[in-house]
């Protein structure tokens, strides 16, 4: 109960600071509206905002699921197959280094203006964090565990031994690292979805924000922004809780 109370109090304090800044600085409402105006708009147009939230939320979650799957597969392949490593590692770095907005129009061209170009953007953004984190974990498997497992599987063929070690030792040992990557990915996936919407869309919070901006409806812009931020936080907390439950053996100083 006290955690909920703390969260509520913190929110109020932050909103208070926001409103205080707006009053004291006298900043124009079309640059930064106060929280009261934003909340009024949020309530008045909640149907519109929630509808667009649904679209963006879909893009984010799908992006996370697909991106995570691809990232896990890529990390395993890069680790296990030297040829895959030679091609895969540079590609991995490129996927991170290329600014997404440069690729966004291409994605929209290939995948259309609907859901999938935004999902692709989100996938692109989270691919690197997920893959590198998991790959790091795979690389850092304790040699002692590997020695033991090697001896125990000495009668297997080299291929079956590699698979056994990967499946029973390396992957489980690397799961905490993967979890770290997933936490990062959950934090940045919303960016991919929204940037995708900015490039071309007919729905979503990013689209709504652009529209509101074009019509100088800045309070609607901030209302949409606020909802997006809230969703992102809730998503992150959910993923974090899920991960903690999935990895009960991993010591976690956040665990109560």
């Amino acid at each position, binding site marked *: 109960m006290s955690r909920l109370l703390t969260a509520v109090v913190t929110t109020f304090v932050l909103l208070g600071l926001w409103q205080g800044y707006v009053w004291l600085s006298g900043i124009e409402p079309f640059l930064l509206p106060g929280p009261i105006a934003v909340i009024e708009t949020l309530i008045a147009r909640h149907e519109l905002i929630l509808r667009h939230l649904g679209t963006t939320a879909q893009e984010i979650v799908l992006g996370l699921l697909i991106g995570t799957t691809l990232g896990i597969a890529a990390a395993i392949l890069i680790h296990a197959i030297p040829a895959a490593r030679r091609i895969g590692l540079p590609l991995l770095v490129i996927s991170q280094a290329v600014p997404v907005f440069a690729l966004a129009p291409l994605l929209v061209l290939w995948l259309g203006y609907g859901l999938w170009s935004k999902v692709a953007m989100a996938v692109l953004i989270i691919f690197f964090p997920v893959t590198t984190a998991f790959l790091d974990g795979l690389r850092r498997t*304790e040699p*002692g*565990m590997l*020695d*033991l*497992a*090697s*001896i*125990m*599987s*000495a*009668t*297997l063929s080299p291929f*079956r031994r590699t698979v*056994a*070690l990967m499946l*029973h*030792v390396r992957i*489980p*040992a690397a*799961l905490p690292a993967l979890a770290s990557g997933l936490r990062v990915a959950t934090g940045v996936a919303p960016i991919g979805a929204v940037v995708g919407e900015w490039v071309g869309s007919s729905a979503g919070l990013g689209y709504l924000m652009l529209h509101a901006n074009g019509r100088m409806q800045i309070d609607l812009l901030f209302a949409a922004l606020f909802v997006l931020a809230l969703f992102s936080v809730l998503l992150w907390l959910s993923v974090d809780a899920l991960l903690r439950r999935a*990895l*009960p*053996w*991993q*010591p976690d100083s956040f665990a109560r």
Partner: protein
Amino acid sequence: MGVLPGTSPEASAEGGFGLALRGLSVAYGARTILRDLSLDVPAGSTTCLLGPSGIGKSTLLRRVAGLIDGPGTVQATDGRPLAGRVALMGQGDGLLPWLDALDNVLLGSRLRGERADRDRGLAMLARVGLADAAESRPATLSGGMRQRVALARTLMEDCPLVLMDEPFSAVDALTRLRLQDLAAEMLAGRTVLMVTHDPWEAIRISHAITVMTGDPATISRTLKPDGQTPRAIDTDSARDHWRQLMEALGEMA
């Protein structure tokens, strides 16, 4: 100390064999760790490799295990290949933190894709006195308990050759003594090659003590204390052995 109550000494394993190590050399880059090392490890008894830290004992053990390659041969005295007949117990307990004690004991069959014999696994845990801990994760067990699980796992593998690399160095002195007793009892009749830096440990539980010294490492001498293991160490012969070992290690004039 002595044997844990309620257990009985392990019967001699069938198909026991000794080891013939010939001309083993291991180098890491420009540094030669072992040069042309040869040793006979008798079947069915415990041989300790004693030497100062960093001399290459672990390297030798890993070479014997086949984890590293190099010139020289490692042969079983019955001429058959070693793969599948060796069990390893390392410095850390090597327990996988995401599996409970029983699943750790059953790790070998899991890796090999065989059906796990849960009853036998539980029996092994019972033999080391941890039947109640079967569903506990390693993080909830003490250091000594974890090493006992590792010992149960080693027993589960039921291999005639057991290689151990300072397996009891990470626990406190009292637990170490208890574990030594347990190991001596559980591994009786198997061919054991154990690495240690503690002369007392060697005196307590081995049938032959091989001293390694020098750079690159060579065998300087071999001692064969008599009597049943685990031995008492407050006897004259024990103190005698200790003096001889310290001399061999170059610690005494």
